C-alpha cells in the first residue's frame, strides 16, 4: 500500500501539483434486517479505492479509482492534474490552504467487542426477540428490526508530509412497528427513527435493550391509529432528545458550515443565514443555549483522530450563551475568517473529496438536577413530541418544519392525551431564542445521524448530535389541513 500511495503522490507532483494528498480507504459493512419474524436480509459489502486530490495553478482536481494498482495510481494522479488545469481556467483567485502543520500518527475507535466477531445467530437472536415482543401486540401490521456494523481503514498522506492511519468502527441497531388502517399509517421506532448508530463495538448494540422496548413501541403504533389529530396553534413545546438532535442538525449544523456560508453549496444544498458579518454578533439562541462541535466525543459518528485533510480532531464552541461564535471549517475556508481549520473536512468514501461536514454538533445539557419530567411538570399547557418522522428546511436554514411520530398534550404539568401526526414549524433564531429550559446530563444522548446528504456528487455523511430534552415557548404546532 505504501508503494501505491507514494506512486500516486510522486505522479501528482510530476504533473505539476503545488499540493497533493492521497487517500486509500477500505470499508467493510455488514447488515441484518428482520421483518415480521423472518430474516429479511443479511449482507456483507466491501469497497476500497484510492483518491488523489491536488492543486495545480490554484485550482482543485480530484480523481479516484477502485483499481488499486500502480499504473492506475499514476493515471488518476495525471487525470486529477488535467482536471485541476480545467478548474484553474475558470477561477478568479487561486485556492490557498491554511498553515495546519502536517501530522503523523494513527487512531482507532475504542472497541470492547469486535462486532465482526459476534456470531450471526446471536445478532439474529437480538432482533428476533424484539420482533416477537412486537408481534404480541394485536394490530401491528409490519415489524422490522435492523442491525449494522462497519469498519473503515484509511491511509492519508500529503505532499506536505502528513502520514496518517485510522480505523473507524461503527455499530448500531433499531426496531420499528407499523400499524395501518383505512387512511392511516402510524409508525413507532426505537431508539430513534432508523435506529441508533455510534462509533463503538458490539457493546453499543447490547446496551440498546431493543427487546425491552419492543412491546411499548408496538402498542404506541397501534394506539396512534385511533388517537386524535394533533391540534393546531401556538403552544409551549418540549422535544425529546433524538428529535432535538435532528433540529440541531438542520437548523444549526448545516448553517454553520462555512462552505455554505461562502456560497460554495448554493446550487444544491443552499446557503446560510449565518453570514460572516454575524460571527460574534448574532444572538442565535437564548442565553442557556450552548452548542459545540466536538470531534473527540466518545461514540460520535463525527469522532476521529484527524479529518480527511489531516487536521486533528477538536472541540470547538459554535454557540456560546446564545451568541454565534464559530463555524465548521476546512483548510480552504478557515483563512477567510482569519482562523485555522477546526477539522471538519470529511469525505464519505474513497471516491469523494473531503467537504465541510458536521462532526458531533451538540447542545450542552442543562442543570444537573433537571430532568424531562421536571420540564413537563413545569409546563402548564403544551405538547411533548417524540421521535422524528419528517423534516424540511429552506435553503438558508431559516424556515423549518418537522413531523414526529408521536405527541402528548401537557396539561397542568402532566403528560396527558396521545395525539397523532404532530408537526411544528418555525424560524431558526426565533425558535432557539425561545428555548427556556434544557434537561440535565442524565437525559443527554449522543444520537447518530448517518444519512446527512450534501455535495455534488452527493455524499452521505455520518454525524452525531448530543442533546437533552428541551422546552421552547410559543411554537406553531399542527401545520396544514388534516
Amino acid at each position, binding site marked *: 500500500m505504501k508503494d501505491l500511495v507514494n506512486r500516486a503522490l510522486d505522479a501528482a507532483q510530476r504533473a505539476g501539483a503545488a499540493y497533493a494528498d492521497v487517500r486509500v480507504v477500505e470499508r467493510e459493512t455488514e447488515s441484518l434486517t428482520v421483518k415480521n419474524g423472518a430474516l429479511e436480509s443479511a449482507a456483507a459489502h*466491501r469497497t476500497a479505492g484510492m483518491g488523489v486530490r491536488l492543486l495545480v495553478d490554484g485550482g482543485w482536481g480530484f480523481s479516484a479509482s477502485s483499481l488499486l494498482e500502480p499504473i492506475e495510481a499514476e493515471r488518476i494522479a495525471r487525470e486529477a492534474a488535467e482536471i485541476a488545469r480545467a*478548474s484553474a481556467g475558470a477561477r478568479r483567485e487561486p485556492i490557498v490552504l491554511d498553515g495546519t502543520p502536517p501530522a503523523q500518527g494513527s487512531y482507532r475507535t475504542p472497541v470492547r467487542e469486535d462486532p465482526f466477531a459476534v456470531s450471526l445467530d446471536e445478532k439474529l437472536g437480538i432482533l428476533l426477540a424484539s420482533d416477537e415482543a412486537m408481534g404480541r401486540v394485536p394490530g401491528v401490521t409490519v415489524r422490522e428490526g435492523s442491525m449494522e456494523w462497519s469498519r473503515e481503514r484509511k491511509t492519508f498522506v500529503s505532499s506536505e508530509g502528513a502520514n496518517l492511519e485510522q480505523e473507524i468502527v461503527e455499530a448500531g441497531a433499531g426496531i420499528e412497528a*407499523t400499524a395501518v388502517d383505512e387512511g392511516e399509517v402510524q409508525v413507532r421506532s426505537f431508539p430513534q427513527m432508523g435506529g441508533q448508530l455510534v462509533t463503538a463495538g458490539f457493546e453499543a448494540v447490547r446496551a440498546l435493550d431493543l427487546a425491552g422496548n419492543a412491546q411499548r413501541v408496538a402498542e404506541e403504533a397501534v394506539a396512534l391509529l385511533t388517537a386524535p389529530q394533533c391540534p393546531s396553534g401556538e403552544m409551549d413545546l418540549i422535544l425529546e432528545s433524538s428529535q432535538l438532535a435532528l433540529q440541531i442538525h438542520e437548523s444549526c449544523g448545516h448553517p454553520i458550515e462555512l462552505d455554505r456560508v461562502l456560497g460554495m453549496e448554493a*446550487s444544491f444544498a*443552499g446557503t446560510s443565514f449565518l453570514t460572516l458579518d*454575524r460571527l460574534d454578533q448574532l444572538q442565535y439562541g437564548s442565553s442557556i443555549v450552548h452548542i459545540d462541535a466536538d470531534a473527540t466525543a466518545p461514540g460520535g459518528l463525527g469522532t476521529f483522530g484527524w479529518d480527511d485533510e489531516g487536521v486533528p480532531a477538536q472541540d470547538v464552541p459554535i454557540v456560546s450563551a446564545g451568541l454565534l461564535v464559530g463555524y465548521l471549517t476546512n483548510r480552504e475556508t478557515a483563512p477567510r475568517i482569519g482562523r485555522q481549520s477546526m477539522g471538519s473536512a470529511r469525505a464519505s468514501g474513497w471516491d469523494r473529496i473531503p467537504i465541510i461536514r458536521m462532526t458531533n454538533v451538540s447542545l450542552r445539557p442543562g442543570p444537573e438536577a433537571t430532568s424531562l419530567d421536571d420540564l413537563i411538570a413545569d409546563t402548564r399547557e403544551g405538547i411533548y413530541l417524540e421521535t422524528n418522522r419528517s423534516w424540511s428546511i429552506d435553503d438558508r436554514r431559516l*424556515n423549518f418544519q418537522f413531523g414526529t411520530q408521536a405527541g402528548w398534550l401537557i396539561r397542568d404539568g402532566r403528560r396527558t392525551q396521545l395525539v397523532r401526526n404532530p408537526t411544528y414549524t418555525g424560524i431558526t433564531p426565533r425558535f432557539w431564542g425561545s428555548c427556556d429550559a434544557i434537561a440535565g446530563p442524565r437525559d443527554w444522548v449522543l444520537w447518530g445521524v448517518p444519512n446527512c446528504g450534501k455535495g455534488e456528487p452527493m455524499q452521505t455523511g455520518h454525524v452525531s448530535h448530543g442533546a437533552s430534552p428541551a422546552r421552547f415557548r410559543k411554537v406553531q404546532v399542527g401545520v396544514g389541513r388534516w
Partner: protein
Amino acid sequence: MVTADRHDPAVAAALLDRVLELVPNGEAEAVYTARDEALTRFANSQIHQNVADRDRSVRVRLTRDGRTGVASTNRLDEAGLRAAVEQALAIRDRAARNPDTSPLAGGPSTAHVRSGWTDRTADADPALRAAAARAVIDAALAAGLEASGAFSTEALTMAVANTRGLRSSASTTAAKLLSVVMGTDGASGYAQATDPDVGRIDGAAIGAEAVDRAQRTTGAEDLAPGEYQVLLEPYAVAALIEYISFIGFSALAAQEGRSFMELGRTVMGSNVRIWDDGQDPGGLPSIIDFEGVRKQRVDLVTDGVATGHVHDTATAHRAGTASTGHGLPAPNPWGPVAWNLFMAGGRASHDELLAGIDRGIWVTRFHYVNVVHAKRAILTGMTKDGTFLVEKGRIVRPIRNLRFTQSVPEAFSRIRGLSDETRLVGAEYSGIAVRAPALLIDGFGFTGATAAEGPG
C-alpha cells in the same frame, strides 16, 4: 481486467460466469456494475470543485432452501471474487430460513443494449465541462449576477447473470447541467438540462434561462401563506412526482397498506396520466433492473384512476404476477422503485396556463421536499429560485419563498390545465428522472413563509 474493458459486455459476462462457477450449490445471482462519473462544480462564478471517479463492483445473492446471503466487492480479481462468494455462502448457510423468499428472476434475458448510451457523454472531458460552466458563468456575470451550478456526466454498464439462465446487460449514459444564478438583493433563478447525450446540453441556454428567472425575482416581497391557485413549472411537478413515487407507486408500499394507490380507485383528476417507462428515449433510459429484468412500461395513474404498481421479483412473487423490472440491488428492504417517470401533457401553452390564474402563485421549483403523511401523500417543502404572484393572468411581482404542506393526490385532483410541452427533469436528491408538463392547479396549500432577513 484492464480499465478499458470495464464497459465491454463480453468481459462483464465472462466475469459473472466465473462468479457463478464459484458457487457450489443453490441458486445464485451475480450483478456487475461499472460506473464512471465526473462532475465540475462552480460557485461564486468560478469552478471550485472538479472530480472524476471510476468504480466496478460485483454483488452476489445466493439462495438455498429459503436462506439468502448477499455480498458485494469492488475487488474483481480471482481472490476478490472468491472472497465475496465465500462470504455470501457463509451468510446464507448460517441464515434463518425465510418462507417468503422469492425465486430469482427467470427471464427472459436481454441481450446487451446500448440505446441509452452516447460516446460523447462517456468520453466527455474536463475541458468540455469547464466550457459549459464558463458559458453559464459568462451569462450571469454579463447580467451583474453570480452563477453556481454543476455539470455531471456518467457512463454506466450493468450486467446480471443467474443460475436460472438469465443473462442481461445494458449500458447507459447521462449528463446533467444545473445552475442557480443569484444577485445580492435576494434574486435567484434556476435552470437544468438532463439528457443521455451531453452534446444536447447547451450551457449558454441554461445560463440564459437561469439569468432571466433571477432578473425577474429582484425585489421579492412577502405574501401571506394560504391556499392559492398555482402554476407549477415542470421542475416543481417533477419533485412532487419523485416523492409520491417513493411512497405510493411501489407494490411493496401497496402490499403493506402504506400507499394511497389502491388499484381501481380514482386517486387524481381525470386529466392525469402518469406512467413509468425505462425504455422511452424521451426520458433517461435505464433498460434493465438490478435483477436483470427488462423494464416494462407501467401505467400507474390512468385518467385519474390508480392502474398499476411497479414490481420486483419479491413483490411480484407475493402478488402472483411478474416483475415489471423495477428491482433495486439485493438485499432490498425498500421494495421496487419507479425510476423513469412520465406525466402526460395537455393542450395549453404556458401563456394560456398563466392567463387562467385569477390570483395565484407561479412556482419555478421546490426545495427540500419531504413526506409529512405517506398514506395521504402529504408533502412539505419550500418554493425556490423564482416564485411570483400572478393576478388576472399577469405576473404582478416576485415573492419570497413559501412553504407548502399539501396532499399531492388532492392537488392533482384539481388540475385545471396542463402544458402541451413537457420537460425532462433530473431529480434533486435521487437518480429519478421525470418528464413532466407545467400544471395549473386550483388550490394548493402554503403554510409558511421564509423570513425576510432571517434573524429578528
